C-alpha cells in the first residue's frame, strides 16, 4: 500500500488536474439549495413565520430547525470523518503532478467555502435585518434566524473545516504544522455561531428593536474580520503552487 498510494494510481489514469465537474457541481449544489431555501422563506415566512406562538410556526419553522440541526451534525460527522479516514498516510511521497492536482481539488473546497461564506455572511445576515422590520422579535428562532444562524453558518463551517482537513491530510505543504491563518479563516467565522449566544442573550432583555449597528452585534463584526485570513491562505497557496510551477513558468 505504501508503494502504491492512491495518488500514483490517479496519476497513472491521468485524471484531469482540475475536476471542473466537481467544481461546478459543488457550487451548483449550494446555489440550488439556497434558492430553494429562499423560496421556502418567501412562502412560509409570510404564511407561518410571523407569530412564533402559532401552531403552524411549529410545523413549518421549528421542525425545519430540528431537521436542519440533525442533518448538519450528520453531514459534518460523515464528511469530516471520511476526509480524515481516507487521509493519505504517505502524503510526503506523492508526485509533484499529484500534488498539483490536489491543490486544484483543495481550491474546489476553498471555492465552495468562499461561496458558502458569501451566503452566510452576506446574503442571509443582511436579510435578517429586513425580516426584523416585518415582525416583532418574539422568539430567538425567528424564521430568518433559523436560516441564518442555524443553517447558513453551520454550512460554511462544515465546508471550511472540510477544506482545512483536506489540506491537512492530503497536501505536503500543510504538514509543517498548523497553518495559523487557515485556522483563523475557519475558526473565526465558526465563532460567529457561538456568538449567537451573546446576541440572543442581549436581545432577551436589552432591546427588542432592530439597530444593526448596536454594540451588541460587535462580536459578529470581530469574528467577521477573520475572513481576511483568506489572504494568508492565498499567499501560502501561491507560494506552494509557485514552487511546483516555477521552473516551467519563469
Amino acid at each position, binding site marked *: 500500500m505504501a508503494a502504491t498510494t492512491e495518488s500514483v494510481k490517479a496519476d497513472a489514469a491521468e485524471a484531469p488536474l482540475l475536476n471542473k465537474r466537481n467544481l461546478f457541481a459543488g457550487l451548483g449544489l449550494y446555489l440550488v439549495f439556497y434558492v430553494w431555501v429562499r423560496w421556502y422563506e418567501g412562502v412560509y415566512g409570510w404564511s407561518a413565520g*410571523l407569530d*412564533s406562538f402559532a401552531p403552524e410556526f411549529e410545523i413549518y419553522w421549528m421542525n425545519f430547525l430540528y431537521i436542519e440541526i440533525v442533518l448538519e451534525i450528520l453531514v459534518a460527522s460523515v464528511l469530516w470523518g471520511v476526509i480524515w479516514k481516507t487521509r493519505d498516510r504517505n502524503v510526503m511521497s506523492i508526485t509533484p503532478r499529484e500534488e498539483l492536482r490536489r491543490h486544484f481539488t483543495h481550491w474546489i473546497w476553498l471555492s465552495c467555502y468562499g461561496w458558502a461564506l458569501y451566503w452566510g455572511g452576506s446574503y442571509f445576515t443582511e436579510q435578517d435585518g429586513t425580516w426584523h422590520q416585518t415582525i*416583532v422579535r*418574539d422568539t430567538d428562532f425567528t424564521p430568518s434566524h433559523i436560516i441564518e444562524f442555524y443553517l447558513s453558518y453551520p454550512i460554511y463551517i462544515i465546508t471550511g473545516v472540510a477544506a482545512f482537513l483536506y489540506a491537512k491530510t492530503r497536501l505536503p505543504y500543510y504538514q509543517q504544522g498548523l497553518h495559523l491563518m487557515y485556522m483563523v479563516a475557519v475558526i473565526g467565522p465558526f465563532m460567529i455561531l457561538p456568538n449567537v449566544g451573546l446576541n440572543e442573550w442581549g436581545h432577551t432583555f436589552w*432591546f427588542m428593536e432592530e439597530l444593526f449597528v448596536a454594540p451588541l452585534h460587535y462580536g459578529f463584526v470581530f469574528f467577521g474580520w477573520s475572513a481576511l485570513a483568506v489572504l494568508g491562505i492565498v499567499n501560502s497557496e501561491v507560494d506552494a503552487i509557485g514552487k511546483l510551477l516555477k521552473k516551467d513558468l519563469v
Partner: protein
Amino acid sequence: MKTIKDKVAKLSFVALLMTLSAAMLYTPTASAHGEKSQAAFMRMRTIHWFDLNWSKPKVAVNETMEISGKFHVFAGWPETVDKPEVTFLNIGIPGPVFIRAGSWIGDQLVPRSVSLELGETYSFRVLLKARRPGEWHVHTMMNVEGGGPIIGPGKFVTITGTMGSFRNELTTLTGENLDLETWGLSNVYFWHGLWYLIGVAWVVYWIRRPVFVPRALAVNAGKLDGLVTDTDKKVAIIFFVGTIGIVLLGMGQANSKYPVTTPLQAGLMRGMVPLEMPEAFVDVKVEEASYRVPGRAMQMTLTVTNNGDVAVRLGEFNTASVRFLDPEVYQDDSGYPADLLADAGLSVSDNSPLQPGETRTIEVTASDAAWEVYRLSDLIYDPDSRFAGLLFFFDENGGRQMVMVDAPLIPVFI
C-alpha cells in the same frame, strides 16, 4: 447528448426563476404578530389601549383605512421599561403592506418621536393606505425607547387588488409631482451602475494579465519593473482624473437639478395634548387579587365607592387588551377582535346598581381562555407579580367611568 444537457440546463434555470417569482408574487395570509411573547406584567402595566376602531375589514390597494382609539399611559409603569419620554406611535403590520399615510396623537401629526406623560390618556388615529394584497393582522403599537414595542390589539384586514397598481403620488414644495414608490429609482440605478462598471473596468484591466503566481514569483525575485508599466500608470491617471471629474460633474449636475434641498427632519416632539378625562367619581380599592391556574380565572375582591350622583354598574375589565365584559351591563358592538373579547367573561358577585354614596365590597371574576391563549396567565411566573387594568363602570344615562387598578396578584395553584 449535448442538446439534452443544454435543455436540462435551460429548464433548470427557468425553474429557478419561476421559483423565485412564485415566492415574490405569493399572496399570503399572515398570522398574528408575536405580541404574546411579551411578559404579561409589561403588557398590563404600560400602555392600555381602548375604544379602538378599525374603520374597514377590507380595502383595495390605494384605498385607506383608519385605526383610531385611545390609550392610557399607566401611572404604575414598570421599572424594567424606560419611562415613555421618547416614544413612537408605530403600527404593527408585517412591513409596508400598508403605507402609514398619517398618524396623530390628539390633533398633532406624529411622524417623529414624542414624549408622553405617565397617568395621562391620549386619543390617537393612524391612517393607512393599502399597498400589498393579503390578509394582514393590523395592530396598534407604541415603541418606547429603552423598552421596545408595546403591542396593542390586532385585527385582520384584507387588502385586495394588485401591488403593481399602488401609487404614492405627492407634490413637493418645489412643485414637482412624483410617485414616491419609484421616485429617483432610475437615477439610483444609473449612478450605482456607472460606478460599478468603472470598478469592474479597473479590476478587469489588471486581471487580463496573469495575476497571482507569476506576479508573486516576480516580486519575490525582485523583478518589479514589468509588473506596473508606464501604460498602467497612464491608465491609472485616467481613472483618477475620471473619478474626480465624474464626482464633480455629478455633484454639479445634482445641485443644478435640485437647487432646493433640506436636511433630514428630526427631533423629539414634546407637549402632546392629553385627553381631558372627567374626574372619576367611582373609587376602587383592591382588597385582594388572585389568579386561579386550574380555572383560568382571575378573582378580585374590590371595595367600590360611588361618590357621584348617579348609580353605576361594573361593565368591563380591560387588561393587556383583553376585555372581560358583563353582558348584562355592557355589550360591545364595535367589532373588537373576537379572540380578545370575553363578552361574558366578567362576573360580579353583586352587580346591582351601586347607588350614589354607597360603598360595596364585591367579588369580581374575569375568566376566559384568553388568559392562556394570550399568555397573560404567565404573569404568575413573571419577576414582578403585579397586575393592572382598566375598570369601566356604566351609569343608566350612558355615562362611563374609567378607573385604574394596580395591585399584587397571588397565584392559586391547587
